[in-house]
């Protein structure tokens, strides 16, 4: 198959914090991809440019060949910035491969394995300019999301994004963390999936103290109990709880996921926008399948990254649920540029009672309105996590 020479690879920063890539081939195909490492926008954009210099104008093959060049073509590779850049390019190449074939990517990957993809909603007010968020507010948000049709929700520690946890918290604070989960479970009832994202904000000691206290609430999973890359400690913590443990959004190499499986993780959360795109995510999912481990792809990206993630879910049997933020980014007061403003016919990104339905649109499944996209693209898109400090003034995990 002639894959067509790549003649351009351009990247754009879009509000509120997306990094997208446009790839064009000599025979007129255009593909789009997204890089998920949003806290290093200029660095990722530069990496995309340096990878592009290895590909543009060269005789390259399909997504697999370009993946090898993008991830290994400069000798040194790996890590958040480079893998995120390579992910965006990989996605765009898959988009082009689908368009060339006139098929959605899920069809190239073997066709639909499910009729719909379950999604979950976040219970967070991180970007809403709030200093203190109460348990009642989070529980109320959970009820609202369920009313919208979601069958699963995810809450995180701490409720207020800029509040650090101490290495070993007081009894009062520990009770408060447990109460948050208990209140949400009470509010949504036993039929709704509830996940907890610790976001690596607890120390190992605190995690061991806390995890057994969370067992009564029937959680889908507990996410990032231990900060990457401490896979060894993860094994130890997994032995302290009957709740399924999940992690993956900050691992960028396939062997890391093998190690996470060995360490007792039963749900892996590779992010297709930073793990190395569809090419790498497929490999990880296949290894996970050999170990009877499920995939719940992480996605805190924009519409392109989400569309790609959905293609993957539709074709990958051990995917169980997709993270997404459609309803979160719908609040125009805090996100003036709408999530779908530059997506033409966004039916592939519409939720139906908490599920996404497949679309026949070739490639990633959405058409980009380039004019609308370029109108909002800007070079000033710097977002970074809040600088979080403990009470003694030392740096804490965000």
């Amino acid at each position, binding site marked *: 198959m002639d894959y067509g020479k790549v003649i351009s690879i351009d990247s754009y920063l879009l509000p509120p914090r997306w990094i997208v890539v446009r790839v064009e081939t000599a025979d007129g195909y255009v593909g789009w991809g997204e890089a998920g*490492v949003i806290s290093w926008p200029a660095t990722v954009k530069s990496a995309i440019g340096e990878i592009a210099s290895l590909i543009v104008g060269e005789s390259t093959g399909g997504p697999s060949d370009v993946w090898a060049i993008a991830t290994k*073509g400069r000798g040194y590779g790996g890590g958040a910035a480079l893998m995120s850049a390579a992910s965006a390019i990989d996605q765009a190449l898959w988009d082009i491969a689908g368009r060339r074939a006139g098929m959605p990517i899920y069809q190239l990957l073997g066709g639909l394995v499910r009729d719909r993809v379950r999604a979950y909603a976040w219970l967070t007010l991180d970007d809403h300019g709030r200093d203190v968020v109460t348990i009642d507010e989070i529980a109320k948000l959970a009820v609202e999301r369920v009313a919208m049709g979601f069958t699963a929700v995810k809450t995180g520690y701490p409720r207020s994004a800029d509040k650090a946890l101490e290495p070993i918290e007081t009894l009062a604070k520990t009770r408060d963390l447990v109460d948050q989960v208990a209140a949400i479970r009470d509010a949504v009832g036993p039929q709704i999936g509830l996940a907890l994202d610790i976001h690596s904000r607890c120390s190992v000691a605190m995690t061991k103290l806390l995890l057994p206290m969370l067992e009564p609430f029937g959680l889908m999973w507990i996410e990032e109990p231990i900060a990457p890359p401490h896979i*060894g400690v993860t094994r130890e913590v997994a032995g302290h709880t009957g709740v399924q443990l999940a992690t993956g959004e900050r691992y960028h190499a396939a062997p890391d996921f093998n190690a996470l499986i060995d360490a007792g993780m039963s749900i892996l959360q590779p992010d297709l926008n930073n793990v190395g795109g569809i090419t790498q995510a497929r490999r990880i999912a296949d290894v996970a399948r050999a170990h009877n481990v499920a995939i719940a792809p992480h996605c805190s990206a924009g519409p392109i990254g989400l569309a790609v993630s959905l293609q993957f879910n539709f074709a990958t049997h051990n995917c169980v649920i997709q993270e997404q933020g459609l309803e979160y980014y719908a609040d125009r007061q805090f996100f003036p540029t709408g999530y779908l403003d530059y997506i033409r016919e966004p039916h592939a990104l519409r939720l139906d009672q908490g599920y996404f339905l497949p679309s026949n649109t070739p490639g990633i499944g959405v058409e980009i309105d380039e004019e609308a996209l370029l109108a909002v693209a800007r070079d000033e898109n710097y977002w970074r996590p809040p600088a979080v400090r403990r009470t003694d003034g030392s740096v804490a995990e965000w």
Partner: protein
Amino acid sequence: MSVRVRSVRCHYVKPRWLFVEVETAEGITGWGEAAVDPWHRTVGVAIEELGETLIGRDALRIEDNWQSLAHGRFYRGGPVIGAAVGAIDTALWDIAGKAAGVPVYELLGGPVRHRVRAYSWITMDDVRTDNPTNEEYAENARLRQSSGMSAVKASYGRSANDAMTSIEAPGRVADIVDLVHAVRDALDPTVDLALDLHGRCSKGVAKQVLRALDDVHLLFVEEPILPEFGEAWREIASITRLPLATGERSHTLADFKSVLNSGVTVLQPDIGGCGGISEMLRIAHLAQQYDATIAPHWACGPIGLAASLQMACIVPNFLIQEQGVDYYTAADFGVGLCDYLTDPTALQLRDGYFPALTRPGIGVDIDRDMLRANSWPARSWIPPSMRTADGSFANW
């Protein structure tokens, strides 16, 4: 006492180096160097992004700054971030030493040695013709020996397109073994030889090569396979008596922990790629618990080399320093490694050793006129693109 960071600036200089200058409101300037060869522009941008975080902060709170720089943006790890943080961290230590009026090794517990053993390359990638013969390798080795070096390193890979496949014919293994014998035989028994396989072998080929080298005495064998294959390293370590080395492509403490658990006894962290002096010290401390030695990788310019020498003076489990002082010469590259220093003799090798750098900070001062005269507008260097015989991608 506090020293406020006023600016963080990148200087790209020939032949392909990236220096970082951190200026403070108090007038003390610190220098660092990023090491990741093939990602110059991206590392420069990452440094600028980190500069936003650093400006206005107290440069002397080095560890606090390190935490913010390395972990403050949630996503972390990898060569780009390791290099950007490494360059800035080095500059902050330089500032701290200058503020105190002492070399960095005095801040970190005082010197444990007064000179630092180094090795030379006998591979001439940039300046010699393709397909060097074994005799050419041997001749280079003799040349280094006669200049006083007590150790040399040969890299296998005879040409710019010397891809290896997962299963190699016996002739390929024999070619590596013949090269090693030729160089070893050319050297006096008091001079050490190391071999760099550059991660090009598959696990299976690496085992064959190591078995075939079992009767040769080598200082270490570097990257018989790529560092990312942690479990495979254990297998390889169990079939060879030779010390195994890796590290230039490991960028965090945790990366090193995984290879230590696999039987590697020589770690090669790169000060401008592993998160700087702060993280390298942690790596050395971790290695000590495994009775492993540190042989720092360094393939770039004078600032990172000076910083690496400061480390060598602090760390008890130090083995030997990589360097290119005798490789990056003005004759071959237009500008020599030492030409960027106000005192070019500071990094002169004496009988195969660097004397401890006793001036404040990292111990060398930068000649700004030379930076201007040798600026490097291209800002990009790409390794050779390699393909195997069937046209598939191969690791450089």
